[in-house]
């Protein structure tokens, strides 16, 4: 493809104050008004921005040596554990590490924000002491300026786009995608859509190792592909690095997702040089051109079903149609901050403070995204359940007294009720029977619970135990695809048979 302009030409124009810079949103309007050809000819650089929760973020810190020196083995900043599997006073502070005294309230992301704001942070460390590093403990306070190095170093930031979330179940979910109301009560989404840095250079022709970027309010660099980089599905990511001391608390914000944990909102902006028509055309992509799948987060699987294919235009409108229902939608990333980042980056370039850096190596265009296989067999319902042969199974017409006697003889608590064909249609517990006798009821169908929560033989015990707790029940009939009863699993089976056992 024919080159429209080189990095050298662009940087010369920046130095002379002649570079034409537009934010991605202004570029879209300009293309709509004047056509792609003319816009691509005139505009040198398109600036982008995103400001969202990016859990794979953190900072490498070097504290300097105490007198006498210490090999810090365990270390905390404001009670947040810091990774110390490095040299004596090097550490990595991760955004999702939570305070041991205020979990789900304060975490690594908040410490990073506090450091950047110039606040004093408590440092505590422990060691076993060595001949070369005799000190065994320390407690002090630090501020960012005290540190020798403090680098934001994020293994994965700025997803090209991100799936959005909804919830089909009948209970409220608290996720890293925020609060999801039951029965498709709302939709949340992440990313900045038409401002998204990596989507604006969809073919990754200008972004790679060495690309100079806006990071957390300061200057940073792309240092390679991000983890889980999957550009073939338009889920490219980048790893980034930048000096915390150049950054600002406005673009690094600690955050908490209720019942999920802590994280860090990171501001990232990338200048896209319009080097050819292909880059120009992806820089002009609009919210409606960027497809986003709405996934059902109530399905506890890494492969969540897609409820609907949507796009950023529909999501940003505040309302998504699911089935025949208008469902409110709202972002988790700040669109306002994303705009401000694109504007700021534009101003830096126009005022000659920021030159473009041509990447020394582009990001890969294809990367396999492998799942983690569990190679040991996990305990399943089938391993612990009481098989059908050990159960009492009754018919709806059966006499209550007869069943009560069988329950006493066999010393069990749950009686599945099945149809003529053997399919599960209800359940009766000892409590139901006690009540029934008191109220002088005659047959099981008068008292049975018809909405039965069930389990499958192949399910993991963990999942089933969680289901019992959620519904406040102590036993589940185990059924097959045709709803035929195969056995029964109770909380007693789990607690008695599982103690002290991790795998089969």
């Amino acid at each position, binding site marked *: 493809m024919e080159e429209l302009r080189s990095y050298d030409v662009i940087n010369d124009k920046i130095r002379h104050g002649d570079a034409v810079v537009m934010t991605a949103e202004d570029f879209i309007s300009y293309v709509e008004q004047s056509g792609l050809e003319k816009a691509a000819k005139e505009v040198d650089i398109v600036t982008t921005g995103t*400001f*969202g*929760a990016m859990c794979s973020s953190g900072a490498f810190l070097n504290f300097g040596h105490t007198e006498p020196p210490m090999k810090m083995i365990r270390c905390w900043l404001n009670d947040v554990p810091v990774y110390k599997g490095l040299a004596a006073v090097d550490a990595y502070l991760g955004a999702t590490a939570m305070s041991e005294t205020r979990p789900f*309230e304060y975490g690594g992301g908040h410490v990073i924000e506090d450091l950047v704001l110039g606040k004093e942070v408590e440092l505590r460390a422990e060691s076993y002491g060595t001949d070369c590093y005799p000190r065994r403990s320390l407690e002090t306070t630090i501020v960012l300026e005290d540190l020798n190095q403090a680098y934001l170093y994020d293994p994965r930031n700025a997803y090209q786009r991100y799936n959005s979330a909804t919830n089909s179940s009948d209970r*409220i979910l*608290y996720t890293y995608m*925020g*609060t*999801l*109301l039951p029965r498709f*009560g*709302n*939709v*949340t989404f992440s990313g900045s859509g038409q401002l998204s840095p990596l989507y604006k250079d969809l073919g990754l022709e200008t972004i790679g190792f060495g690309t100079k970027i806006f990071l957390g309010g300061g200057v940073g660099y792309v240092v390679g592909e991000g983890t889980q980089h999957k550009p073939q599905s338009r889920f490219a990511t980048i790893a980034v690095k930048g000096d915390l001391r150049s950054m600002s608390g406005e673009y690094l*914000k600690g*955050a*908490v*997702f*209720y019942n999920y944990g802590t*994280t860090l*909102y990171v501001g990232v902006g990338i200048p896209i040089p319009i080097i050819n028509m292909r880059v120009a055309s992806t820089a002009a992509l609009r919210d409606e051109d960027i497809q986003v799948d709405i996934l059902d987060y109530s399905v506890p699987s890494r492969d969540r079903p897609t409820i609907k294919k949507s796009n950023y235009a529909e999501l940003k409108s*505040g309302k998504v149609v699911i089935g025949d229902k208008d*469902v*409110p*939608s*709202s*972002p*988790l*990333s*700040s*669109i*306002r*901050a994303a705009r401000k980042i694109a504007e700021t980056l534009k101003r830096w370039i126009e005022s000659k403070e920021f030159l473009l850096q041509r990447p020394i190596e582009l990001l890969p265009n294809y990367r396999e995204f492998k799942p983690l296989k569990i190679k040991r067999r996990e305990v399943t319902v089938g391993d612990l359940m009481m098989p059908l042969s050990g159960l009492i199974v009754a018919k709806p017409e059966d006499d209550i007294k007869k069943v009560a006697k069988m329950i006493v003889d066999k010393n069990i608590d749950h009686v599945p009720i099945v149809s003529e064909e053997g399919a599960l249609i209800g359940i009766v517990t000892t409590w139901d029977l006690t009540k029934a006798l008191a109220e002088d009821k005659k047959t099981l169908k008068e008292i049975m619970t018809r909405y039965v929560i069930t389990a499958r033989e192949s399910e993991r015990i963990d999942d089933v135990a969680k289901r019992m707790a959620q519904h406040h029940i102590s036993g589940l009939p185990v059924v097959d695809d045709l709803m035929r009863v195969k056995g029964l699993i109770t909380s007693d089976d789990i607690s008695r048979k599982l103690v002290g056992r991790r795998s089969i």
Partner: protein
Amino acid sequence: MKVKLRYSHEVASKPILAEIILKTGLLINILEAKLTPKEGEMVIDIATQGSALKNALGYLRSAGLEVTELRSLVEVDKGLCISCGACISPCPSRAISFDPSLDIEIDAKRCIGCGICVRACPRKAIQLI
């Protein structure tokens, strides 16, 4: 006017709302209710104002309910808020929106004080008042 009613165990089993509706013909919308045979709490919207409202509230109080008038129910700390929008779609009464400059705006007339937005806010910027 939105009103929070607290039922003590003495009155928890009495049909107080039904009585007031039959007596006054007022339209009363139940926005939120947590009731057990022992006690309970309810947020209702009474579609009236002025002296009729005053009489209705007087009636509820004389029936033994603790009555709190709800005006502004939540407060956003603008210093903490990052305008992400995480609070908007979880709001069951659709009281939260972006204003034209993408600031978070809460419509006090719609808010029922359920507190879902307090949990939904990643910055802990929203408080019930």
